[in-house]
């Protein structure tokens, strides 16, 4: 998948935020957070913004798109 993310690092930097806690903030299931973190699922734009908001960082600090 050409979209990579830094969710694992950001969770670590935010006091080892659990996947369940992040899922609660974003309003999705923990399994969806796991799938996003492992690059198995590309979230919707809304969910992506909510994830960035949960870490109080801009979207591009969470998700990176590699061309080609």
């Amino acid at each position, binding site marked *: 998948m050409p979209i990579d993310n830094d969710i694992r690092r950001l969770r670590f930097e935010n006091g080892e935020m659990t996947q369940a806690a992040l899922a609660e903030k974003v309003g999705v*299931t*923990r*399994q*969806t957070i*796991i799938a996003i973190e492992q690059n*198995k*699922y590309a979230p919707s734009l809304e*969910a992506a913004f909510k994830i960035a908001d949960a870490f109080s960082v801009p979207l591009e600090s969470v998700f990176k798109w590699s061309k080609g």
Partner: protein
Amino acid sequence: MSRVSSFRERVAWSALSTYIMVFFVFFWTLPQSWTDRAGDPKMSLLALGAFVLIVGAQWLGRALEAPKRESQPDEREQLIALKADRIGGMVTMLGAIGVTATALLFGYNAVFLANLVLAALLIGQIAKTITQLVYFKAGA
């Protein structure tokens, strides 16, 4: 990292195992009725009743047992449901075409054709559930 199944994934597993268990006998008897081209209407009605009961029980169970925060499917689960519906629908449609062709070509009686329609519906449901489980494992 532990792999914990979501509520809907567990529901899909239980649905698949129930379909296979309950309809094992039905599918077992279908080839036997093929030879006399008739089929047992009692068995068909029983299978149809069980099918309606299972689907109804699943709806009820989902409504009552879903954890509060999982009462509504999230975006990934909705996407998986749509993909599974598409595959299940295609399989059911192919089954319906097969049954129609069988009726037109061989002119089997209504009870036997009803058995085939029921089989097509069930295979469609099983295909849908398996697709869901595959996508739950794969991510989406």
